[in-house]
Every structure is written in structure tokens, then in C-alpha cells.
């Protein structure tokens, strides 16, 4: 994402990757002697005491609830226009005021939650799945498989995020005048995932390489376990931690990326409501009516912040070096 905006996701990883990859190796010996709890149990105990984690999870729960049941929070249709009310300031009627076409901003911000969250969740899921599978294979088999897969992932890594997404989205939208909501969301999710999976792959690969040299993998191989069994039963659970940390931070970054793409006019579009779209709509009126920008931007920033904070807290909890 420089990615702005770019490449927000791309950068998000730089820190996550560097700090998280080492922890699998480090944590394996520490958990053996004193406590019967595993890495995750330890992390959970640690997390429950962190205010950052509690605040972040509370925000995320609220946001998820809003995304699931937007009707509980507002009874106004987000796409109903009343030009008499265009750019009206916040009032008791409409808490956030009205946008340029006289649509209720509060209702739009509430309904926009769903699109933003759905895009973020699906894109993260796809990125992590794709990256983990390729990364595990590359890390486990090594040699030419690793070489081919690594070079292949570098092809996508070299593409600047925003630029790549613009090219992909315009190509697939070229023939369609008004694409349907589901189609647009799928396209945005796919293009984010296609451009981001190499990062998840790199993290998984380095975790897999270090896990491969551990005794438990050697033991499993000596006992005659097949490659799929070693990968799925032994390596996967032990390589999961760094990727989990990456995915939480990436989720926040992807929500921001969706907003950036919608802002450029190639991401989500009408009739879908999203925060990025609202910010894009506001761009010509921000000088006279800054509330058009501030409310959706506030929703966006708080949500992204919550996910990034969660990722931060989880990383700290999983990292034995900081204890």
C-alpha cells in the first residue's frame, strides 16, 4: 500500500516482519520448562492486562456490531437525497449533518462500515491464505521450488501498490458501465490480495525455514511422517504467530487502502456506501463544509487505529524478547 498510501500494507509489514519472524524460534525453548501454558496461552494472559489491547478490542467489537446490524443505529436510508438540506451542519435531526447531495452523513457513515469491514476482512483472509500456502511450500521444500516461488512473488512486490491496483481495476472494469455492488467489492478485494500476498508469503517463508530446522520436524520426518502431515500438523501451528500479527495490522491497512482506491474513483462506487467514497465525495467542498470530510475520516481513522493497536499489542505479547 505507498502507498500510500501506497502501499500502506507494504510498509505495515516491514515492521511486523522484522520483529515477528524471530519469535517462533525464540519462544519454543522458553515455554518448555516453567509453565504448562503454550505460546498462545501465555500471550492471552499477557494481553488481558494490557489497556491497549482492551481498548482496541472494544472498538473492534463495536465496529463489527455496527457492520453486522447497521439498521439498529439509524433508520434513515443512506442513499436518500434531499437537496434542500445539502451541506447542512450537524443538528439534533442528523448528528453529522448532510452531504453535498443532502444525504444523512451519520446514516452513511453507519452503513459505510459494512463495506469497509467486509473489504478489509476478505482481503486479509485471501492475502494470508495465499501467502501462507506459498510461503509454507517455499520454506519447506527449499531449493528450486523456493527460488521459483520467491522470484514469482518478487514480481508482484515490485509493482507499486496504488499503481498496480489502478491498472488492475481499470482493466477489469473497462467494459462495464455500472458494475454491481458485489462485483465491485470482489474486484477490490482481489486486487488488494494479488498485490499484497508476497508480504505474507515472505513472513511465512522465513518462519517455515526456521521451523524446518527444529528438532520436532526432524523427529516427525524420522518417524516417517509424510510431507503434507509435517507441513499441516507440525509446521503450520508453529509458523502461525508472525502471520497472525501481520494480518491484524494488514487488516487496518487494507481498510485504508480501500478508502484510497475509492477516493481515486476506481474502488467501490454507488450504490455501495463506504468511508473512502464519502471522503472522495467531500473533496470539492472541504473548504466550506469540512464536516463532510471530518466525520467519515474520523470513523476510518478510529477503525484502522483499533486494528493496528490490536496488532501491536498481540505482537508485544507474543514476543518473548520484550518480557
Amino acid at each position: 500500500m505507498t502507498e500510500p498510501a501506497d502501499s500502506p500494507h507494504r510498509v505495515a509489514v516491514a515492521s511486523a516482519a522484522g520483529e515477528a519472524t524471530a519469535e517462533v524460534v525464540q519462544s519454543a525453548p522458553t515455554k518448555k520448562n516453567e509453565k504448562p501454558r503454550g505460546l498462545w496461552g501465555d500471550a492471552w494472559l499477557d494481553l488481558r492486562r494490557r489497556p491497549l489491547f482492551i481498548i482496541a478490542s472494544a472498538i473492534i467489537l463495536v465496529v463489527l456490531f455496527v457492520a453486522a446490524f447497521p439498521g439498529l443505529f439509524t433508520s434513515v436510508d443512506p442513499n436518500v437525497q434531499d437537496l434542500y438540506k445539502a451541506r447542512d451542519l450537524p443538528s439534533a435531526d442528523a448528528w453529522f449533518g448532510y452531504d453535498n447531495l443532502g444525504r444523512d452523513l451519520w446514516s452513511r457513515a453507519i452503513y459505510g462500515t459494512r463495506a469497509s469491514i467486509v473489504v478489509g476482512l476478505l482481503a486479509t483472509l485471501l492475502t494470508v491464505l495465499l501467502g501462507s500456502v506459498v510461503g509454507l511450500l517455499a520454506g519447506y521444500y527449499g531449493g528450486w521450488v523456493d527460488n521459483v516461488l520467491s522470484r514469482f512473488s518478487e514480481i508482484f512486490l515490485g509493482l507499486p501498490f496504488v499503481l498496480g491496483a489502478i491498472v488492475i481495476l481499470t482493466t477489469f472494469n473497462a467494459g462495464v458501465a455500472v458494475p454491481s455492488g458485489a462485483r465491485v467489492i470482489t474486484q477490490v478485494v482481489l486486487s488488494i490480495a494479488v498485490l499484497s500476498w508476497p508480504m505474507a508469503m515472505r513472513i511465512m517463508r522465513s518462519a517455515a525455514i526456521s521451523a524446518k530446522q527444529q528438532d520436532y520436524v526432524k523427529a516427525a520426518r524420522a518417524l516417517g511422517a509424510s510431507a503434507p502431515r509435517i507441513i499441516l500438523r507440525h509446521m503450520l501451528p508453529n509458523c502461525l504467530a508472525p502471520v497472525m500479527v501481520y494480518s491484524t495490522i494488514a487488516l487496518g491497512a487494507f481498510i485504508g487502502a480501500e478508502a484510497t482506491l475509492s477516493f481515486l474513483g476506481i474502488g467501490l462506487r454507488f450504490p455501495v456506501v463506504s468511508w473512502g467514497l464519502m471522503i472522495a465525495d467531500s473533496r470539492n467542498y472541504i473548504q466550506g463544509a469540512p464536516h463532510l470530510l471530518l466525520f467519515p475520516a474520523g470513523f476510518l481513522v478510529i477503525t484502522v487505529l483499533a486494528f493496528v493497536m490490536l496488532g501491536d499489542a498481540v505482537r508485544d505479547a507474543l514476543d518473548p524478547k520484550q518480557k
Partner: protein
Amino acid sequence: MGRYLLRRLLQLIPVFIGTTLIIYLLVWALPGDPFAGKCGDRGCPPTYIAEMREKYNLDDPLIVQYFKYLGKLLTGDFGETYAGIKVGELIQNAYPTTIKLAVVALIIEALIGLAAGILTGLRGRGFLDNLVLVSTLFLISLPVFVTGFLLQIVLGVQLDIIKPTVSSEPSIGELIVPGFVLGSLSMAYVARLTRTSLMENRRADYVRTATAKGLEPRRVIGVHLLRNSMIPVITFLGTDLGALMGGAIVTEGVFNIRGIGGLIYKSILTKEGTTVTGIVTLLVLVYLLMNLLVDLLYAVLDPRIRYD
């Protein structure tokens, strides 16, 4: 060193071909006739279309077209737009502005990010540390265009300190605020990366040894600790230049800067495939070469790393 460099350069080739091929295929696979509506209401005469299709090899299979394009590219010829303007010239006009913007962003992010990271990394936990952690978290969650808009309104319109948009031949001074916006996200990462790296290395054996043998603290920190802790930061900064140039498209849009971002966006909309592929090729080259440079810098920074 020489052999390592050669191997790395050879490894760049498949990546370079792969990336440009993907972009080429995507751009030229755009459905629709590129010459529709180019000649006004009456449509283009068939002879003109035939000539253009011949010129851009549009009748060949896509893959053949790509290698013909690549062949020309290797001789330094970026091709022409449909209107007959040399793409090389377009790039020459737009590129310096974007490079200037990206370099300004890189310098700002390196200066502020490193300063904040070193300060908190050396001091350890405390008020300053928390302040940097919270403010970087906040910067990370602000999308670039929101930061851009906010600074544009506050600094440009309300406080009237800067001009809200930038002139066509921007000076470095004009680019400081856009550069700050562009680099703000990476700045947060640089600060956090430096901080973590310093905190981890502060307890390393070589630092203890250096202190134990009686070196003055300034030398321990400057020569031993900082030099070793800079490795992940340098990696990040190096790869970031390419990302900044590619990501400049949003910042350029907000501040109305005439760089390659606007050029590429316009070219995609008007189906000028030659321009798009030309610019992306340049961006990919910058990214790959910066990666290589960073890897070579490792050997300078870390005496444990040697390439032979």
C-alpha cells in the same frame, strides 16, 4: 563481491521481465478500440487505423508485441503516444518533479523518523517513548489523502502559511508539506523500527564488551550500537524510495503536482498503453536497483556480512 553483484543483476532480469509483462498484458488487454473517438465524430479513416495498428504491432499476438516493445525499450526508445508525442519526452517532463517529491519525502521521513527513534530507543520507557508510540500509531492509521487534505485546509486555507496547491515547476520549499504528507506513514515506521532495533541491540554482547573495555559512551553508541541498529532501517528506507514514487499518485492529486502520478492516471483513462508501461517500467527499475543497493550497503554497515 563482483560475482555476488553479477548474480544479483542476473536475478533481476526475470523479475523485471515478469513485472513489465504483467503490466503490459493488463494494459493492452483493456477491452475497447483505442482509436474510437480519437478523430472526432466521423471516426478514423481505415488507412489511419491500419497504419496505427501496424505501428503499434496491434495485429501480432500480445506476447510478440511485448517482446517487440521490450526490444525497443532496450535501445532507450519508449515509443510514442497515439498523438505522436514521444513518451520519453513526457516522462522527462514529469519525472524530475516526482523524484524531487519522493526525495524530499525520504529526507523528511529519515530525519524525523530517525531522530524520534533514536531518542526513544536510547532513553527507554517514559513519557517521550509513549508519546512517540501513540503519535506513530496515529500516523499509521491516517490514510495519506486524509493527512493531505487536513494539512491543505489547516496550513493552506485557514492559516495561510503555504499555498494549497503547488506551481507547475515546484521549488523544494513548496514540496516540503507534500513531501511530509507523502512520507508521513513511512516516517512512523522508521521511528518504530529504529526504536525497536536500538532497544534490542542495547543489550547485545558487543555493546557490553565495548563498554567493558572502557570506550567512552559516545563511541559505543555512535560506532557500535547505531551502526548495527541501522541495518533494518536502511533496508526500509531503501525500498521505500520506489514505493514513495509509486505512491506519489495520491499526494500529487491532492496538491495538484504535475508528476508521473497524474500522467499515468490520465494515460490509463485514455488507454495510452505505451505511456503506462513506460512509466511503470521505470518505477520497477528504481525499486529493483534500490533493493540491490540496500543489499550491498549491508556489507558496509555490518562487518559480519561479507559477499564473496
